[in-house]
């Protein structure tokens, strides 16, 4: 489903070109569980942002569901993000003035889904993630675990094919972190491809495919893939 071919990404820092990714080749199929590990600055997050279409490669091609998405314009890319990609961030990124239910509803509002349908889906998600009694609470009234659950509910509200998680447990304690990982792993049953950046080897080792990155290159892949 996801095909990266010789993907590179370099940034200009001052008057120097810094390569964040060098010639990445990567294939990820629907339902794959991939963890990306490596020291900080190894290009993990850049890779994730590229896959999430938040960033464009400097060279190379990125095909999603067979189509070359690097050539799409802003509006088309936004549409792909809306329909196929879900994000879960380390810092949750909930809109502080909106309630939990409204945060979950947000992607559907942006996609222009009818209010009745939105309401139905929000109800279901709140129930699935055990947030029924927290629906009208704003993020600052929620615990970290609850916040990340809201974020996961939000990421799945548009039924994405790929879920990208950037250090999803980074701001959580061990117990809630494990709960969150459990919730994310449940999505695999729905054939969602889960790609998770982490530097926690315990969490990373749970993935079927474990990719190790150093200096913008994939140095090894363990586990059974493809």
């Amino acid at each position, binding site marked *: 489903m996801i095909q990266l071919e010789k993907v590179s990404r370099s940034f200009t820092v001052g008057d120097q070109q810094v390569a964040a990714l060098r010639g990445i080749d990567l294939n990820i199929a629907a339902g794959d569980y991939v963890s990306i590990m490596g020291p900080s600055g190894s290009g993990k997050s850049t890779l994730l942002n590229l896959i999430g279409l938040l960033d464009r490669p400097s060279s190379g091609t990125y095909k999603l569901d067979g189509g070359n998405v690097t050539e799409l314009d802003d*509006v088309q890319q936004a549409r792909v993000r809306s329909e196929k990609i879900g994000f879960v961030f380390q810092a949750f990124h909930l809109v502080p003035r909106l309630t939990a239910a409204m945060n979950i509803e947000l992607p559907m509002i942006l996609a222009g889904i009818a*209010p009745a349908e939105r309401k139905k889906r929000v109800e279901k998600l709140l129930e699935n993630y055990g947030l029924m009694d927290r629906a009208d609470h704003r993020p600052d009234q929620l615990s970290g675990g609850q916040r990340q659950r809201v974020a996961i509910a939000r990421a799945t509200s548009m039924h994405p094919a790929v879920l990208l998680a950037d250090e999803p447990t980074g701001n959580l304690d061990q117990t809630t972190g494990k709960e969150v990982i459990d919730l994310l792993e449940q999505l695999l049953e729905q054939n969602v491809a889960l790609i998770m950046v982490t530097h926690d080897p315990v969490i990373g080792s749970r993935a079927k495919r474990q990719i190790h990155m150093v200096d913008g290159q994939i140095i090894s892949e363990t586990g059974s893939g493809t």
Partner: protein
Amino acid sequence: MRLADVAQFASGSLRGNPTRTLLMILAMSIGVASVVVLTALGEGARLYVVNQFSSLGTNLVIVLPGRTETAGIGPGMLLGQIPREITLDDAEAILRSRAVKRIAPLTVGTATLSRDALNREVVVLGSTSDLLEVRHMSLGIGKFLPPGDIHESASVCVLGNQMKRELFGNEQAVGQWVRLGDRGFRVIGVLGEQGESMGMRTDELVIIPVASAHQLFNTSGLFRIMIEAKSRDVIDQVKHDAEQIMFQRHNGEKDVTVITQDAVLATFDRILTALTLAVGGIAAISLAVAGVLIMNVMLIAVAQRVKEIGLLKALGAPGRQIRALFFAEAALLSAVGSVVGLALGYAGSMLVGKIYPSLPVSPPWWAVLAACGIAMGTGILFSVWPARRAAQLDPVAALAGR
């Protein structure tokens, strides 16, 4: 994204920062209110003048001696350079025009009005019975000048309200005799109280038959001929007829000026409308200032909400949607600001109306529309830049809060 959702999202983010929102609404509404109040004042002044003019009489055409190239009162007349005077016969001749309803020849002079030991200088108006109608005067007690041959003098006079009070106090004036210069006149009527109209205090006038005035001042010319047209539509016809008649009677010489009340009124109207526009324009500048304020605050808002903008992008909002959200915020702010401003403006106008009751203060509809339009326009215009900036944010950097 649905329109209702855009509006809801925008109003949600405005409510999310009430202080900022209130300040912007305040700035906007002060701008709108000042446009409304200032144009209301200008329009009030215009209406005041228009009313003054119509109190002078309706459908008036005025013939004055002397020729001026432009309409209005020329220097020649002020200096008394009269090539040929207008006579009572000229006035009667004008009556031949079928468009003319009635005329009132006018002679003006000053004389000493006295009764027993009391005396004062007064403006004496020589005219005919029709003056009452032509000039929309009101009669208090008694009768106005008797109708009849305008060449016939009669020793009768009509006193202005104040003249009557000064000479007679609470006594009965009608039937009494007063002296104007060296002639005796019997008071046959007293004018009703009318105050000032166009600088002439009718309360301080004495009106006598035009022929008597000619004898009193030893003249034969007329100061004005006031002509009332049969209707508004034939004013131009009357003007033309009067010019023609005078032209013929004065041996082909164009030595009189015929002006219409409308022309004078139109001039005042233009001047005062320009004035209203000018003050309205000055007030509109404050709206532009409010627009700049909105731009500033919106830029700060973009900076404060980078993470949210980055998130919206990650969740599938294209740049134009983010732009639309910021536009919606600006539009909402401007709309609320306009409504509050209109309320303030109308309240202010009413207050001015209370302070100056004689001024018919009411904001003209075009100013109200323009104020709201400019408010919306500047609000949206000045949010273009911030909205663009938001839309162009790099999502990765925005999410990281950079």
